[in-house]
């Protein structure tokens, strides 16, 4: 391999946050920052990925993440194709690996993959030649979500280190929580996870988070309150007795929020269950809630990831092809 200079992000794929250094995370965030500005202009279109093909392969339904990746690819000039499991041959019994090999034969440059099972994206990445971006796999990781959350926080607070971040809700099954804990811990934030004992494990302490079972202690002096979505199928007696009881103890309302810092930011990866994990007024509080801003950051972060990963591909586009500067 004729690599010339050390690359700022020396990886072929973005499969997770685990293993990324603070430096690599910073490289991604700095690059994203430039795309935020770019996206606020009238002409958002660039030609950095002109001629490149991006396939969004979603084995699990998603609107916002898929749209965000699609916009990111198109704004960079790539040809973007969306494939969903419903429409593909996966339903006909073709294995994940067969699907990967088939798509690989079509010579895409980037595969953006979401899958309901942990590790499925890693498996697929072993079988293809192109760059793979994990858009969420089971309960494992959702790296671009963690990056967009970090970017949102960094722009509002100017830093990540030293902040107290409370992640509340179904931590156990959440890929968003896993990616966020690892990113925030790597960047020096103090992370707490807050959930009933059925939705969190004491083992999260080994990932560097403090485990809390009540909102009052978990939110005390928090700079950031990050709410997670509670999957409806996990309620009704399986992990918590009822929606009503869950909201009573863990739903974010102004009363519970009072424990946090007065200017604490409220975040949510969406889509929200209003009245289940978050009170409607809190979610819509323009002084506190940065939920819409997270969505905006999402496009910029995904553009930055596509930019950096395709930069590694052989015969990379010439530098004057319109990279964000």
């Amino acid at each position, binding site marked *: 391999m004729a690599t010339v200079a050390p690359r700022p992000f020396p990886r072929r794929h973005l499969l997770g946050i685990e293993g990324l250094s603070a430096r690599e995370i910073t490289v991604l965030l700095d690059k994203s920052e430039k795309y935020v500005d770019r996206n606020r202009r009238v002409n958002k279109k660039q030609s950095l990925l002109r001629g490149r093909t991006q396939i969004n392969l979603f084995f699990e339904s998603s609107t916002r993440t898929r749209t965000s990746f699609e916009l990111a690819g198109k704004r960079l000039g790539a040809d973007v194709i969306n494939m969903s499991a419903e429409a593909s041959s996966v339903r006909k019994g073709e294995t994940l690996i067969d699907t990967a090999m088939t798509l690989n034969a079509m010579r895409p440059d980037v595969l953006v993959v979401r899958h309901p099972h942990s590790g499925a994206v890693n498996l697929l990445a072993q079988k293809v030649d192109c760059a793979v971006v994990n858009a969420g796999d089971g309960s*494992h990781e959702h790296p671009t979500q963690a990056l967009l959350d970090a970017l949102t926080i960094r722009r509002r607070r100017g830093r990540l280190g030293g902040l107290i971040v409370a992640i509340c809700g179904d931590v156990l099954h959440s890929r968003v929580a896993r990616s966020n804990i690892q990113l925030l811990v790597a960047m020096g934030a103090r992370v707490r996870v807050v959930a009933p004992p059925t939705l969190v494990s004491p083992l999260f302490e*080994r990932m560097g988070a403090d485990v809390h079972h009540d909102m009052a202690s978990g939110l005390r002096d928090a700079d950031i309150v990050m709410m997670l979505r509670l999957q409806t199928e996990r309620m009704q007696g399986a992990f918590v007795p009822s929606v009503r009881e869950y909201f009573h103890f863990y739903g974010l309302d102004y009363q519970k929020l009072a424990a946090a810092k007065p200017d604490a930011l409220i975040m949510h990866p969406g889509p929200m269950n209003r009245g289940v994990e978050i009170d409607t007024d809190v979610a819509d509080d323009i002084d506190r809630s940065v939920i819409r801003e997270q969505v905006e950051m999402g496009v910029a972060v995904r553009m930055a990831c596509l930019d950096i990963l395709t930069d590694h591909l052989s015969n990379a586009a010439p530098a004057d092809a319109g990279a964000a500067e």
Partner: protein
Amino acid sequence: MARSFSKGDPGRVAYVNARLVDPRDGRDEPGALLTDGHRIADLGPGLFADGVPEGIRAVDCGGRVLAPGLIDMRAFLGEPGHEHKETLATGTEAAAVGGVTTVICLPGTDPAIDDTALVEYIERRAREDAVVRVHPMGAITKGTEGREMTEMGLLGNAGAVAFTDGDRAVADARLMRRALAYASGLDLLIVQHVEEAALADAGCMNEGELALRLGLPGIPAAAEVIALERDLRLVELTGGRYHAACVSTAESVARLADAGKRGLPVSAGVAAHHFALNENAVGEYRTFAKTSPPLRAEEDRRALIEGMRRGEIDVIVSDHSPQDQESKRQPFIQAAAGIAGLETMLPLALELHHNGSLPLMRVLEMMTAAPARLLGLDVGRLEAGAPADLVVIDLDTPWRLSEAGLVAKSKNTPFDGRPVQGRAARTVVAGHTVHELAPPR
């Protein structure tokens, strides 16, 4: 090489210049052994001191270990219904390579071995195709579905050597109690896959930090311990003979020690991969390291070896579970569990001898005399008149296990590339050599 050990007369064969090792009576001495037809005729240190007489074929063991052929108490051999994963021909060929001369096959086939006709079918197919001895275990419940007891008495008469629902646990406590009680009247052995299904079913690897990081649902050690504790209570109630098929946790070893002290008729097995690997083998979602019960923590692995040393665990098994590529090349949670273990059991067990964990005699006992005693088999001993099932073991030569080197039909092994020391140099069943390692260069 003989396609089948049951055909033809192998004549008289002298195994000279051997280190005779028989765990049943503790014999470990240089000597020779004579087989005549299908049986051992004589053995001892002085035998053939003046050379081998004419008319007897001589096999020079080169000072290597000559032991009773190994008995593997737990292997899935595919037939009937899963011939795409393993057959009696390929499975027993793998056994021969692994030094195994008797394979006990599991009843979780399709259809399950829950009827005398199936036992007879296995025996007939084994006569046609197998290169080592095969005995089936019968199902405890019809279809291994955990609802109705099988005709254990008749199955036993037909040749089933013990009873198990394979990789399914008998969940219903009342049914398990009755099975143990009924079996005790006929002195049959009940073999349980020790797992509380309600705690285990949602999981796919050991519960712990690694599973948490990988986002995979875990199986807690308690899933095994709870089931074992329940079963031990039922053994106490019924007096039935009970064997825990393969235990995986430190806690289980402690419970077995306790049961032993109370004199309960309880025994246990351990799969080679459970003392050779821990959960870290899963690494980045390696489905070849997905097993049932799952690979556990390092403390558990060490406790298993300690349990083997102290005799709380009685037998080593391969837990041979052949899986085709389709079943393993899947996201971890969807992939099938199991390791193709027949060919790797002996080299892995010998690691325990080489690293000083267990004496060689104990290692071999767990694959010869111990399973023979539990199952009431005539094999597993070096004695005049005993069946001539033998293995010549090269203890010392280092080599690497390899996936490509396996002869089993399915090659799902997590041990590809593992450096090991020692292997079966020659495997003899009923006087016939069924496997012989090519001499080095």
